[in-house]
């Protein structure tokens, strides 16, 4: 694969204009059919924290935008990715990432023990659709399956009562104005390591030495060849690619979609592959890249934990990487619903107990 972007390494000291221009040079520009240039100049300056002089330099150097001179409008994903690899250290995306990845400081052993979470999701119609005509609506929300990594469901309530149905793959409802799910879930994990050298070579081939993570619409991540060729390996793209390569090499593999626990509202995807010892190994190349590029003082063993182990930080579903965790259809047409996802660590943690353990098969 010919990768267009240069490998990115975290700078030892904050960078100035050159860092911004380097980041722009390797920016994955959101393509026209998925662009949404609604971020105004003032909001862009607040997000980038670079000052108007640098923003003007970036505009002269080709930062894509709409609007008029002095009143430019930008795509939010372009700005986030531009900031993430600027090396400025002060932009909102860089600070947000450092904050959100603090859990990567901890000893990986903390990722394998049972943890209890209060879980709540509420879906409402997309803003553009208003509240009208609920009789023509169909809703789905991926059913949580913590047992796939050794956890369990303590309780799960779905709503509206009498209208929502709990299925193996999805919670569904039709003709309602929304969909809710809440309960108490216990996630768990297990340290596992890749045994097959052949498999290890495949699953570590999209590492931080060559690829960078980026924010972009799910629909773009599904176009994995286009995204990976630009040196970006967001979770969906890289998992779809790795599953394909693992299967070509004779390994049973699938992608899985779920949520990252304790990060307010973040869906995620990872790879599940059956190693030559017969055990499922979870591989999370996006976490490996994030730890190397964006986490502050990550634990030295954390990347190893992301390459084989099952993690209590992830809540699996039966969805694949290219299936959104929730959906809304009106008159048969799909749209992303508005969603509020609260996943908070419970004050009471589970007592140790004998469990059936995590599954051995990939559940294809």
């Amino acid at each position, binding site marked *: 694969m010919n990768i267009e972007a240069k490998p990115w390494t975290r700078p030892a000291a904050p960078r100035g204009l050159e860092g911004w221009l380097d980041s722009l040079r390797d920016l994955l520009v959101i393509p026209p059919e998925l662009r949404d240039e609604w971020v105004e100049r003032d909001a862009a300056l607040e997000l980038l924290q670079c000052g108007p002089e640098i923003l003007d330099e970036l505009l002269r150097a080709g930062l894509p935008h709409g609007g008029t001179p002095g009143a430019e409008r930008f795509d939010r994903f372009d700005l986030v990715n531009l900031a993430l690899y600027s090396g400025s250290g002060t932009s909102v995306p860089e600070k*947000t990432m450092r904050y959100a990845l603090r859990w990567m400081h901890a000893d990986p052993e903390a990722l394998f023990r049972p943890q209890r979470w209060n879980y709540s999701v509420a879906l409402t119609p997309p803003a553009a659709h208003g509240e009208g005509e609920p009789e023509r609506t169909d809703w789905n929300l991926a059913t949580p399956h913590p047992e796939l990594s050794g956890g369990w469901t303590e309780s799960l309530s779905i709503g509206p009562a009498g209208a929502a149905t709990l299925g193996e793959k999805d919670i569904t409802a039709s003709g309602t104005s929304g969909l809710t799910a809440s309960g108490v879930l216990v996630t768990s994990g297990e340290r596992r390591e890749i045994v097959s050298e052949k498999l290890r070579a495949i699953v570590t081939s999209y590492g931080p030495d060559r690829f960078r993570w980026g924010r972009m619409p799910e629909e773009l991540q599904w176009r994995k060849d286009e995204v990976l060729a630009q040196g970006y390996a967001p979770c969906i793209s890289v998992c779809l690619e790795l599953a394909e390569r693992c299967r070509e090499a004779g390994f049973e593999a699938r992608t899985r979609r779920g949520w990252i626990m304790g990060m*307010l509202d973040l869906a995620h995807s990872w790879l599940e592959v059956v190693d030559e010892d017969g055990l499922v190994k979870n591989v999370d190349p996006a976490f490996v890249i994030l730890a190397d590029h964006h986490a502050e003082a990550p634990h030295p063993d954390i990347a190893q934990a992301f390459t084989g182990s099952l993690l209590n930080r992830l809540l699996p579903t039966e969805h694949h990487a290219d299936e959104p965790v929730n959906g809304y259809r009106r008159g048969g047409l799909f749209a992303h619903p508005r969603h509020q996802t609260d996943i908070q660590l419970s004050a009471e943690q589970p007592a140790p107990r004998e469990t059936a353990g995590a599954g051995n098969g990939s559940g294809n």
Partner: protein
Amino acid sequence: MSTVTGFDAVIQYLLTKRPDLTSIDPDLDLVENRILDSLGFVNFLYVLEEQTGEEILMENVTPSDFRTINSIRKRFFHESE
């Protein structure tokens, strides 16, 4: 440089987000009234950590903890409304 600390410093920080306001009703929705937004949220978390002296872990908070002055006071300064 401001010498205000603790909860008062948090209020002062929030007021900088809406210079047209001189005070904030303790039950005002900070998100709906554009005092807190996604852009400013992490900066606000760093301010809260500095003023409470405690690390705020994302897994221990929900959006409702930041919805009003009263909820912030109760959740992070352990004071009743």
